[in-house]
């Protein structure tokens, strides 16, 4: 047993897991308030990261200007997407809704490849020190920052949904659209808001990952990894999404450890979450914290 490697991998898993958690949270936010499964969540990360990269590299903006501009852009993008593409889909069968987001995902991925090329582009340096030492383990500064940022986002989400007026309106809409509407909540506004927040926070995660690994279309794979996380946590539970993300992150890295030390199968890392996904769907389809839907005739 190589404990040091295991520890390093588990720490990595926790860090990546928090990022999965944040993206999963965005995914759940959209599902909970608008009942749409967003297969294009990974593309939000991709677009956010590319836009920020372009602002920093092509326009030479400093990070503290470029980053907020990216967030504003993503907010507009999210609202626009909801209004133009997703609003006509309200009331359509589930296959149409799924296929529209899949279509969006393919479309944006291809367009991003067309505009920015297929090669990994390094992000300009933002932190002067590359890695810091925590308890004898080397951890990248950007990762530490990402965990900090993720925690801030999670706290902000909790506050937003518990105390702010808009957050309460969103929760009411998620609970029952008709009742919310009769209380004077604009459901349209809530839907647009959900997409805007989701796009913004995803872009933030995209920028963080881009800082560490460089920006490339591989970023959109986060959108696929989100599925095991949200199914594990329950499709409509925000806490479940965070926990699911953490578990999937750690699981991936332990799978990597077991694979490299004992099994030598190769790329167990990428498939293990999907086996977990199928098993969970078979034994506990509503996940750890999801609401059970009881059908009555």
């Amino acid at each position, binding site marked *: 047993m190589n404990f040091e490697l295991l520890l390093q991998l588990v720490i990595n898993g926790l860090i990546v897991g928090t990022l999965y958690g944040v993206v999963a949270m965005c995914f759940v936010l959209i599902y909970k308030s608008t009942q749409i499964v967003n297969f294009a969540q990974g593309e939000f990360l991709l677009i956010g990261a590319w836009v920020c990269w372009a602002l920093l590299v092509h326009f030479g903006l400093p990070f503290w200007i470029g980053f907020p501009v990216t967030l504003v852009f993503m907010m507009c993008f999210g609202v626009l997407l909801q209004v133009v593409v997703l609003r006509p889909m309200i009331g359509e069968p*589930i296959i149409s809704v799924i296929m*529209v987001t899949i279509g969006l995902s393919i479309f944006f*991925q291809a367009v991003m490849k067309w505009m920015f090329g297929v090669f990994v582009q390094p992000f300009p340096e933002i932190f002067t020190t590359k890695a810091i030492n925590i308890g004898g383990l080397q951890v990248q500064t950007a990762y530490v920052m990402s965990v900090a940022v993720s925690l801030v986002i999670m706290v902000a989400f909790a506050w937003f949904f518990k105390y702010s007026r808009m957050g309460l309106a969103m929760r009411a809409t998620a609970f029952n659209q008709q009742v919310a509407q009769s209380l004077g909540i604009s459901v349209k506004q809530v839907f647009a808001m959900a997409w805007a927040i989701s796009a913004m926070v995803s872009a933030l995660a995209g920028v963080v990952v881009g800082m560490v690994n460089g920006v490339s279309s591989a970023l959109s794979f986060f959108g696929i990894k989100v599925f095991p996380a949200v199914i594990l946590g329950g499709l409509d539970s925000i806490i479940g999404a965070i926990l699911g993300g953490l578990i999937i992150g750690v699981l991936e890295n332990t799978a990597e450890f077991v694979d490299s030390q004992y099994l030598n199968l190769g*790329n167990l890392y990428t*498939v293990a979450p999907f086996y977990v996904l*199928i098993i969970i769907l078979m034994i506990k389809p509503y996940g750890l914290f999801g609401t059970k839907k009881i059908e009555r005739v």
Partner: protein
Amino acid sequence: MAATTSMMRCGEFKTSYAKDTTIFPTPMSRNFAILAVLLLLIAPLQIGDFQFLSRYQINLLIQIGYYSIAALGLNILVGCTGQISLGHAAFFGFGAFSSAWLSNNTGIPVFFTIPLAGLMTTAVGLIFGVPAARIKGLYLAIATFASQFILEDFFARADWFTGGSAGAMAMPFTLFGHELSGDRSYFYVVLAYLVVMFICGANLLRSRDGRAFVAVRDHYLSAEVMGINLTKYRILSFGVASFFAGIGGALYGHYLGYVSAEGFSILLSIQFLGMIIIGGLGSVMGTIMGTAFMVLLPEVMEFGASGLSGVAPGLTDGLAFLKEAAIGLAIILFLIFEPDGLAHRWKMTKAYWKLYPFSY
């Protein structure tokens, strides 16, 4: 009555259930279908220097052929039974690999390995359809999404079966000692399979099992009350879909002569779904229309880009990505503006011309 039987009829005059479920509603439509098959039979002929279609056009027709066989399976699963599958390309690939493996390792002639590959894929499809017994809708879509990745990983890993990353060679199709490997002769193999599979598919939907599929889609509780075994039919439709996918995949493998694991990605699965959505969910003829649309769309774009190369020279460089983007865009636009697909559009066009100058 003579007028009503000879040309298109101006209304519905069906008096029995059997008449309502016939494959061809009028003798005219049947004659047109037969004519189309006859035209396709002479299409690849080459008389001296004269040829009806170039080799490239035949290649496109073959592609439409094997893709539409697989897409018909998916249409039975998604359009008729209402179960979303995001893993159809994996089954298509499994069919290609099993036929190649059978013909390479067991010495069974390719003529028999294609249906056998269909059966092997059915078995796999039944296994991956098991989650359908418990979950449906969105959750099922996510489960099939996972099975796509699991099978893709299996293709890359199982060296004994697929040749791993190197891929597998597939033997050419032989019939009574004649090798049918060129585009022009292989065309007939695909055409024969296309006709047989489409007749099977269309007839399946008229049978008790087909009606059970539709009942499960429309209202599963009522279906269960009427004595339809939900679990059985949900898993069975996965089996049927994989059989079609397996046959299509086997035809694909023997056409190219080489099967590589990279060809069966999630993108192909999405393309299959795009074909049936563009063609029309639950429509047999729509499947062919949608497949033709999906196969011809990149070709048309290539044609357009080469035409515009003088005006916009950058267009040809990014063409590969633009083609991919066009697939996504086509799916989105069809879902927003024509959710019933080309089959519905075709019906509307026919209805318009039926009473042409006085359409009201």
